[in-house]
């Protein structure tokens, strides 16, 4: 007998750490995501009773995988028996059960997590579906919580997940890791999904709190898992480094009252040095081999910002140079806008302002809330306060996060003092 509290904690822990491993190994037996998901859920439920009675097993993941796979095999067997009683209606193509039982007789845990990740992030699925599937299937987040993260109702999210799973089986999206030749194209959506989850958590799209800590943790967990599974991919290292160095500042992004603090006003002594050091090592390794990709470069920029002893001592010219390289591999107007921030420190707010106005005219950033915010700041620093007021009002009109709105209002009010 084990203490119920200890068992509950062990199950919660196994849910957080091992869900992907258990589900991925079960999909191979079930041959179907829906059936596998159901069996894994049942295995976790059964663990509560078994582990209370027999104690927590030494290898919870192996126990859960065996239990889930046994359920899947039973379900397939029932299906085959059902079919064999109706021989005129359908002939089983092959003995699936025999094939599966042969595959893994000792019930070990095959690491199929990469297959699961690449299937959930297949480019034939919309990014919306990729992100939802990854949270539900790879992280094991319950559907109501996935719905809450996306600010949609539970039935809407359930329908979105069902639709995505139907496309996987209907279009026969394979359950496998892409070949080396396909990898760059197939890794991009995987990295994009993890980065999006982090961004959603880092600055919640709306609501009162700036950070959704659970989403940030999930994204970090995924990035670490991917790094463990693909240790030699430079962009996988780059993404983990970017998340680590960005998240190292989490504690200081708002003050005690929850107000947003600018980088120059944050207490650098409270940044997570261990995370920054880990990111630094990943970046150095990433910059060494060949032409660095977008995540390595973004991480290098974030790391330069973070490692300066003070805001004033930041290596601005080096940051502008990294932005130039980033624009070469990732010509995005958002990157070009972010580049104007260090540019203002190197070439002055007037030069940066001219660049912001050029981007505004190009139209690629219409409705992007940070464009008027950056512009307002540069106008203020150029002494053009009347125009700055207009720009702050524009930024406020499109900002939805309450913490960011409060920050913009405060900046606007300070112009009148």
């Amino acid at each position: 007998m084990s203490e119920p509290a200890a068992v509950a904690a062990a199950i919660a822990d196994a849910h957080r750490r091992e869900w992907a491993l258990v589900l991925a190994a079960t999909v191979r037996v079930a041959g179907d995501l829906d059936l596998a998901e159901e069996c894994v859920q049942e295995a976790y439920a059964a663990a509560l009773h078994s582990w209370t009675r027999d104690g927590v097993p030494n290898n919870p993941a192996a126990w859960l995988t065996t239990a889930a796979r046994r359920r899947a095999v039973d379900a397939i067997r029932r299906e085959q028996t059902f079919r064999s009683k109706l021989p005129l209606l359908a002939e089983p193509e092959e003995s699936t059960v025999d094939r599966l039982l042969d595959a893994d007789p000792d019930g070990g845990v095959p690491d199929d997590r990469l297959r699961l990740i690449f299937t959930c992030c297949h480019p034939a699925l919309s990014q919306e579906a990729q992100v939802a599937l990854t949270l539900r299937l790879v992280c094991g987040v319950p559907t109501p919580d996935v719905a809450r993260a996306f600010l949609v109702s539970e039935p809407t999210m359930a329908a979105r997940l069902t639709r995505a799973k139907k496309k996987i089986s209907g279009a026969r999206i394979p359950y496998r890791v892409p070949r080396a030749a396909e990898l760059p194209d197939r890794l991009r959506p995987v990295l994009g999904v993890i980065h999006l989850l982090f961004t959603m958590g880092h600055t919640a799209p709306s609501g009162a709190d700036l950070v959704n800590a659970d989403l940030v943790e999930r994204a970090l967990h995924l990035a670490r898992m991917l790094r463990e599974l693909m240790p030699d991919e430079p962009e996988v290292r780059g993404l983990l480094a970017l998340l680590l160095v960005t998240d190292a500042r989490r504690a200081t992004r708002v003050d005690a009252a929850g107000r947003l603090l600018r980088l120059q006003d944050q207490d650098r002594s409270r940044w997570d040095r261990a995370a920054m050091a880990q990111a630094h090592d990943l970046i150095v390794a990433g910059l060494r081999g060949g032409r660095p990709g977008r995540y390595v470069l973004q991480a290098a920029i974030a790391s330069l910002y973070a490692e300066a002893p003070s805001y004033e001592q930041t290596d601005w010219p080096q940051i502008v140079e990294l932005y130039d390289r980033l624009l070469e591999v990732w010509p995005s107007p958002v990157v070009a806008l972010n580049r104007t921030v260090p540019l203002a420190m190197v070439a002055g707010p007037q030069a940066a302002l001219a660049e912001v106005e050029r981007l505004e005219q190009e139209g690629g950033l219409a409705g992007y809330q940070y464009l008027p915010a950056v512009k307002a700041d540069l106008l203020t620093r150029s002494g053009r306060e009347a125009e700055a007021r207009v720009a702050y009002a524009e930024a406020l009109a499109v900002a939805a996060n309450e913490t960011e709105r409060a920050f913009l209002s405060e900046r606007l009010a300070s112009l009148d003092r």
Partner: protein
Amino acid sequence: MAQYAVLIYANDSAHRAHATREETAPHDRHAEELERSGAMVAAYALTTRDLATSVRGDVVTDGPFVDAKEIVAGFYILEAPDLDAALAIAMLNPACHSGGGVEIRPIAGGGVVERPA
């Protein structure tokens, strides 16, 4: 094995009336390659958009059904074990390298109707 339809989208069909062999050569070459690979079940090249006629409800109009920059210039049916295999073949289509592209749809049913000679 599953069957997929590959719809080829291009600004227009390369197969206009009196098209030269040079104009249709990339498409013909690709079709031959597919045939040799054994993956192709059937293939059709369509004529140009100016020969298209559409019927919506009971109204007959000149031109393709969807008013877009691209039209369906042709389609073929291929057999592949999964979507990735089908995509790998479909991506070789010349349309993908000349401003157009392809749409891949799993086939639900159907086939060529057998008729008495």
